[in-house]
């Protein structure tokens, strides 16, 4: 009986949490962050085809869904480093800006995880 009461209480607390903080889920936050800050270059689905993917720029945005290429990249530099310090800091394009002064550590960690999810690597 006590166990049932505990389960019901836990369920109520969780339900309350979802109702009061509907945006608290990490994956949902990461998707929103990606769409807002990254999709302009990398595209909403991460295929490197955002609105800024124009031929006049010296490099094309990275396709985050290219598992083989992304595996090679992450072996050299963790994605979080690129997000924080920008492309130039890891010897890649200066066009990828550093986000450490714009985003919080939690936001950058969420984006790091999201990019890992996109590349399945």
């Amino acid at each position, binding site marked *: 009986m006590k166990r049932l009461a505990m389960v019901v209480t836990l369920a109520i607390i969780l339900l309350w949490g979802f109702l009061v903080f509907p945006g608290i889920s990490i994956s949902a936050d990461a998707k*929103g962050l990606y769409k*807002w800050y990254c999709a*302009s270059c990398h595209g909403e689905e991460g295929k490197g085809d955002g609105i*800024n993917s*124009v031929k006049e*720029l010296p490099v094309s945005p990275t396709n985050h869904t290219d598992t083989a290429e992304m595996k090679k990249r992450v072996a050299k530099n963790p994605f979080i480093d690129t997000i924080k310090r920008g492309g*130039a800091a890891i010897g890649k394009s*200066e066009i990828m*800006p550093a986000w450490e002064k714009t985003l919080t550590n939690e936001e950058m960690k969420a984006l790091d995880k999201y990019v890992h999810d996109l590349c399945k690597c």
Partner: protein
Amino acid sequence: MRRWPVIALTAIVFLFTWVSTSPAQEGEAIFKAKGCESCHSISPPKFGSIEEKMKEKGPNLSYAGSKYKEEWLKKWLAKPENIRYSKYNILSLKPDKHVGISEKEADEVAKYLSALKDAKVVSGAVSSEELKGGEKVKAKTLFEKKKACYACHTVKTPAGKLIGGRSGPDLSMAGERLKGDWVYSYLKAPDHFEPKGRSPVFALSDGDAKILAAYVVSFK
């Protein structure tokens, strides 16, 4: 003879009303009557989240007088042309055509908007003189490489070709539209003008922000 005091009083009231109705007030009345506030807030931005920012349908105009040149406002309001390649805050959609108003109305609204200032914008911070030599080269490097502004903003090459990204406002004619002091203040503290904006917060020195702002407003 008894009518004179009534006529004089009416004239005084009319004159007082005419004098006390400033051009800015006329512009404000037009701004409100045209429903501009449905897309443009005139209250300082205070977004706590991206979701709140995304609800914005057009640029915040609470600091329009610090940001835009009055002459440009007059022309643009009467004959608006898109300065973005997508709908405001929705990159996947094409922009709507902005509503135009008559030249007379545009004059009044431009006066009203030009009176909306932000105390954070330091007047005279950026020289109106053209950058020369090393400063110009440094500013161009900042714009194209070190801070890569043109990854998101379109600019014009000396040959007149438009190049660069398309997520941010077109900067190819930025000097016609923007005030250098505002560009400098924005570069130093973008979050103040556009909390949760897409533009990254750059760690620019005062000197770099000033020459970069001067470079941006040299685009005409």
